[in-house]
């Protein structure tokens, strides 16, 4: 038997503030983006996935990069960031969060990120950025090299980050601070959780309602422990995080999006607000505006294979006559869907939901249908 190799490295692995807790809980640890991270706990990916969909899953996402962009006022900081990303940040209200992408000059995606404007009037001019672990060093260098003199990037490496996700997340977090229940989707508040000050946003990456909680690395373990005292909460590893985000139709950087794909090809049009589409003024704007006007030549779609065999990343996508028209970028088995699902890029003429295509798995065509995403309906608190 031969399993797919996990990414190995000779570099010493970094540890999050929760490392000892993961090991003590019996997690299987794997190298991920330079960190020693839990891929699963003893219950296994399927059970962890289902637990998150039905209760509340607790994820350590401290490997992700957190940094503050700090300028003299919101307008100045927002304009500096808008020169690098296509989202409207100038009009982002205090305490609101937005998903966007750092773009290269060709409109390709260097990383995807969350941008949050502080709710605190005393912090006007500060934006919190959350970026992918594997990209953070390059992201920071890219951003710093392009900032005006009066805006600074302040890395928040002294902070940890956890995600509490699932239909019972609100009930669980509100038990620590009732204000959590009042929050709307993609909003941020500073809350005391069991005596620890935390930046809490109502967001996540599983398709479920939930929160992301950022706090000082030396105190965040107390929040983790307090949450786990609730029997509705179990720790969940990166394996289930991946199957949850796949069912939710969410992109994974380095797989579904990369430096060659634009946000329009990636079907992330919703993340580029009207003002920016019209005005441009971000890297690769010419390409992205052209793709909005003319539609891109290829686009990210959802794919539902027939039967139970999953199609994985890298599988070719073909028409019935065998012509290759695309490639799978993420694929696996969806525990909630109780069947395989995948996403990938196809030539635009094959992108309509309902289109029949073949996924080439181990040299053989596997019948599949282009499907709308998310595969499992999301349950964000609007």
């Amino acid at each position, binding site marked *: *038997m031969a399993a797919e190799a996990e990414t190995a490295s000779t570099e010493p692995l970094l540890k999050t503030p929760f490392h000892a807790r993961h090991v003590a809980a019996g997690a299987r640890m794997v190298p991920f983006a330079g960190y020693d991270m839990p891929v*699963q706990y003893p219950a296994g990916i399927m059970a962890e996935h289902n637990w998150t969909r039905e209760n509340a899953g607790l994820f350590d996402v401290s490997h992700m990069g957190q940094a503050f962009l700090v300028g003299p006022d919101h307008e100045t900081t927002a304009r500096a960031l808008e020169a690098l990303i296509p989202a409207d940040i100038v009009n982002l209200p205090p305490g609101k969060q937005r998903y966007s992408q750092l773009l290269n000059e060709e409109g390709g995606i260097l990383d995807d990120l969350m941008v949050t404007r502080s709710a605190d009037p005393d912090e006007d001019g500060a934006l919190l950025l959350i970026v992918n672990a594997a990209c953070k060093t390059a992201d920071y260098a890219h951003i710093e090299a392009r900032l005006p003199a009066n805006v600074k990037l302040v890395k928040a490496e002294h902070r940890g980050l956890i995600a509490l996700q699932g239909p019972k997340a609100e009930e669980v977090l509100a038990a620590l601070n009732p204000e959590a229940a009042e929050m709307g989707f993609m909003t941020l508040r500073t809350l005391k959780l069991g005596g620890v000050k935390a930046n809490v946003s109502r967001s996540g990456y599983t398709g479920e309602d939930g929160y992301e909680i950022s706090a000082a690395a030396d105190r965040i373990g107390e929040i983790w422990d307090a949450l786990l005292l609730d029997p509705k909460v179990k720790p969940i590893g990166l394996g289930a995080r991946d199957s949850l985000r796949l069912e939710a139709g969410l992109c994974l950087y380095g797989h579904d999006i990369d430096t060659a794909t634009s946000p329009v090809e990636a079907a992330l049009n919703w993340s580029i607000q009207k003002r920016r589409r019209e005005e441009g003024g971000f890297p690769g704007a010419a390409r992205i505006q052209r793709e909005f006007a003319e539609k891109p030549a290829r686009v990210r779609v959802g794919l539902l294979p027939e039967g*139970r065999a999953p199609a*994985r990343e890298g599988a070719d996508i073909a028409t019935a006559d065998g012509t290759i028209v695309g490639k799978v970028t993420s694929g696996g*088995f969806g525990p909630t869907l109780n069947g395989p699902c995948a996403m990938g890029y196809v030539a635009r003429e094959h992108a309509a939901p309902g289109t029949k295509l073949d996924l080439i798995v*181990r040299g053989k065509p596997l019948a599949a249908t282009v499907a709308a995403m998310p595969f499992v309906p999301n349950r964000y608190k609007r």
Partner: protein
Amino acid sequence: MAETRYTKDHEYIRIDGDTGTVGITDYAQGQLGDVVFVELPSVGKALTKGGEAAVVESVKAASEVYAPVSGEVVAVNSELEAAPGTVNEDPAGKGWFVKIKLTNTGELDGLLSEAEYQDYVKTL
């Protein structure tokens, strides 16, 4: 009692006369995690020692199962189509993959005994 031999790749073959039942060990199913699909060969297919005998898909990844010895497939466990999780629940019993008619029983000599395999797993 039928004798069972093992590979270092975590396949077993339970010998009964000139046929053998092939599956993966309990250690292997634990490493794989939840099995969601098993691709089996056709009855009649000739397998070569070390060649692909089946493919096991877990939530996370696809893994090849190699033939411990050469032989012809005489039966496949079609129950696994509807219940792939049987591989996790009972790998040495109901979770078998294929039965093969051995073409070279001498190949069994290169495989590990039960005790040797258990010692090997302890080193992993």
